[in-house]
């Protein structure tokens, strides 16, 4: 990774604020990737093996639902991480992912991230906190969406 790319990597919100040493270790295992709009990144049910730090563009998380085709459940953008399910006991993607716009991201394998965490629990703790923060934010957002706040009162989903 060049100095310029390293600086760019270090500026991503997911790693911002980590000690330089930790950032360097992560950067060493990260590839800068460009994903064209329309390209699928992974499909649901496949083994979950990656973590992408999105720098630009938009990624759609989707699910194939019989009768409804592919439904987009959430979109992610610059500053977001793509890929949390590799932390689950059975690491399998719950949803699929595709680039909606041209995406630039830093891609890591879950294998290498886990290895770094095992070797240095301090780094592991920091990454775990950050991933948890992301998961909490998305859980909150999902619950708010379930409330269907914009529904008209008295209609079926407005309760």
């Amino acid at each position, binding site marked *: 990774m060049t100095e310029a790319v390293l600086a760019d990597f270090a500026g991503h919100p997911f790693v911002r604020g980590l000690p330089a040493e930790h950032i360097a270790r992560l950067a060493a295992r990260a590839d800068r990737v460009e994903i064209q709009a329309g390209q699928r990144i992974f499909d649901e049910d496949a083994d979950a093996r990656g973590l992408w730090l999105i720098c630009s563009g938009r990624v759609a998380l989707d699910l194939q639902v019989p009768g409804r085709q592919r439904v987009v459940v959430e979109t992610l953008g610059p500053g977001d991480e793509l890929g949390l399910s590799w932390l689950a006991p059975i690491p399998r993607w719950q949803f699929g992912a595709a680039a909606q716009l041209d995406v630039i991201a830093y891609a890591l394998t879950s294998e290498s991230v886990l290895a770094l965490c095992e070797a240095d629990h301090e780094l592991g703790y920091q990454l775990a906190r950050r991933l948890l923060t992301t998961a909490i934010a998305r859980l909150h957002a999902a619950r708010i969406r379930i409330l269907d706040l914009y529904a008209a*009162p*008295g209609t079926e989903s*407005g*309760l």
Partner: protein
Amino acid sequence: MNSAAPGNAWRLPAVPGLDDLVRSLQSAGYQVIGPKIAGGAIGLGEIQSADELPFGWGAELSPGGYRLRRRADSAAFGHSAGPQSWKQFLHPPRERLWSARRSGAGGFTAEPAAAADSPLAFLGVRPCDLRAVRMQDEILGAPRHPESGYAGRRAKVLLIAVNCTEPGETCFCTSMGTGPRADAGYDLLLTELAGPGEHEFVVWPGSAAGEGILAGLALEPAAATAVSRADAAVDAAAGRMGRAMEADGLRDLLAESLDAARWDDVAARCLTCGNCTMACPTCFCTTVEDSTDLAGDHAERWQSWASCFDLDFSYLHGGPVRSSGVSRYRQWLTHKLGTWHDQFGSSGCVGCGRCIVWCPVGIDITEEVAALRAERDAIATGDDNRGSRPGDGA
């Protein structure tokens, strides 16, 4: 409070003076409203002659309790906290705001208003109620709403106040700074002197209209001794209040007590029946209702008394904002004693005690306020045995 100089005071003998006064008001075109016994209580209604006044009747007051009692004297105004206040005449329970018809050119044409109400003379307005009238004047009347029905009715009221010489067990006007002496806003002011061998009033005019009525009665000036006895009786009343409420800092107390445990305590007793809001002389909330005839050509808008204890009072987006009894009781008391200051620049309570008497379960707001104060002070000194819990906010 200054008492009027003896030169301004007149002597009105109870008999036949009160009757002369009533007839004089009637011939001046007023419908006279005064206290009268109905349904086991001293309410307010139109009187045709002074005979209908409750001479010699008083009331025994307690939380949730009201009993007529025979007085030892024949005082006509020796009672308080009846179930009705003067607001029913100025701010009626139901009022048609307007009726309109679709007009050919488009739009709606107001139909002629109903015949104007006749002028009313309020005979026997106690100082607490006088302050309540002035409060409603500010909120509903000419200063802010010059074209309202309230303003129209109020402009035609002759207000005869009566200083309090007989505070009730549930009264606390002195705490709220509204009595027992009327300070301003009356056309005539009476103090009753009723005792062994005497029954007369000292009368002071308070306006040109009041002077006009007095002129027609050909009264003698009041004796200086009578005036000083009248003043003394009112001063003595100030020391005989049945209740007290520390009014200082109530706005802040209520603002700081939104999460008090006391609300749960009072809500367990409160029936949310709304009696307090109906009996209270300052409660003014209304509901607006629109209706139409079957043909859809003629529409009316009516306004009727509403209570913040009603579930649909705070209806928004499918349900009430204030659903629990806790929230509704809190709303009423916090508004009356706290946020009324923010909205209208004064307390909303005049210390008349009606809410205490007419609450079916006897909730006493003086007691509730004392409890809220104690709870806040205990928290402030760390004396509340609560400790810090994971659920506590910062």
